[in-house]
């Protein structure tokens, strides 16, 4: 369970998160929608401790992420994250990209790590690309590799930060299909996205962020069919 309690965060004088409260249960898929600069992506990087918070608390299975004694490296094995820019490691083949963390962080033997990597890459449809370097692949393929790389650590939670925003429109589908597959398999996920149809299809709950505040949260039907908040209505009208 991820528990976010009254989290505040500023970048110098700009307050990007103004007291966020959100609880995500095991197996739940929550998508976060909202305009640029609404604080959605920042929240994700706070959840796995890549960004510190100013006040409030984030707990993952009871562990306070931002407490002094917390072993973030250990925590991050449990919480995978995939970014808008996939950040493939260019000096490693696709297979090596996915094997690296299981070997070096989990300390698995080479053949065991390879087995996991092959399984995950097959899962995201990249079984043919094992020996290829990432820069020989399309953005969609690299993004799917990044997803496999995160999954190879067998995380319990996955955070997706606008993973289709930097892709050509024709490549968005393959990545969204991968996310849908994960959601159906029961992965606990928080997805920041601009893909409204996707949010409607896969989410248990949809949260709308506006200027650092969670303006509204509800089931996809509630948010998309009868939004209550004026800002949500305005936002949805503009993206349709």
């Amino acid at each position: 369970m991820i528990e976010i309690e009254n989290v505040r965060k500023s970048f110098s004088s700009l307050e990007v998160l103004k007291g966020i409260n959100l609880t995500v249960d095991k197996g739940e898929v929550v998508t976060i929608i909202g305009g640029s600069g609404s604080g959605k992506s920042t929240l994700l990087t706070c959840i796995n401790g890549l960004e510190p918070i100013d006040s409030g608390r984030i707990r993952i299975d009871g562990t306070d992420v931002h407490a002094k004694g917390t072993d973030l490296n250990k925590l991050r094995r449990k919480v995978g994250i995939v970014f808008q820019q996939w950040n493939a490691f260019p000096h490693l083949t696709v297979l090596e990209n996915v094997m690296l963390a299981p070997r070096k962080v989990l300390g698995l033997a080479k053949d065991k790590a390879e087995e996991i990597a092959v399984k995950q890459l097959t899962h995201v449809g990249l079984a043919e690309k094992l020996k290829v370097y990432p820069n020989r692949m399309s953005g969609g393929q690299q993004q799917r590799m990044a997803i496999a790389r995160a999954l190879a650590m067998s995380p319990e939670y996955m955070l997706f930060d606008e993973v289709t925003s930097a892709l050509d429109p024709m490549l968005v589908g393959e990545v969204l299909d991968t996310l849908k597959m994960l959601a159906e398999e029961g992965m606990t996920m928080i997805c920041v996205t601009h893909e409204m149809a996707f949010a409607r299809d896969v989410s248990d709950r949809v949260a709308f962020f506006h200027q650092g505040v969670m303006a509204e949260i509800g089931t996809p039907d509630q948010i998309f069919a009868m939004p209550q908040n004026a800002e949500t209505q305005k936002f949805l009208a503009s993206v349709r």
Partner: protein
Amino acid sequence: MFNYTFHWNQALRALPQMLDGAVVTLQVAVLSMVIGVACAIALTVFRLSGSRILGGIATTWVEVARNTPALFQIYMAHFGLGNFGIHLSPYTALLVGIAFNNAGYLAENFRGALKAIPDTQARAGRSLGMTSLQAFRLIVLPQMLRVAFLPATNQMVWAILMTSLGVTVGMNTDLAGITQELNARSFRTFEFFALAAVIYYLIAKAVTLAARAFAWRMFRY
């Protein structure tokens, strides 16, 4: 106007002696690079440390090494330090001078290479549970090496050519030193120096080609 008779035989007879010198030349160059790389790594760490004193030392080193003649740097290592009672042999002084120069250029090269790798790479590693050291060693460093490698090769060639400045501090066992002594005895300046130039050229070219082959093999992506 040209009534000079070439005496190539005399030069060619001295070839084995000159090749012995070439070995010393290569030895000094290689050692100066090893020391230079080690110092450059230290200087890079100093500059990233955030300490004003360490940063100041590193910046001064880099500035002096890059903006004063290599000849002066070698002179200082021999005669300059001699004034303070630190007496380095010509060989050591030449080595120290070139290593100093190498470190300055290489530190700048390393800093550029480090900047060329986006922060998001280390961040991706951290988010997979790596420690910052692991992320640096496994992700940033290998990419840095590729960026820094070919400029470092240029510095190696430059180091080989700089060894010839050793004659000014009395170095007489390297290629330039031996050539200079043969010249002083025979006054066949053109022949001896032309032959030495060919040897320098061949060493430099061989180093460049070997480095290129190595890079092609190592950096496949």
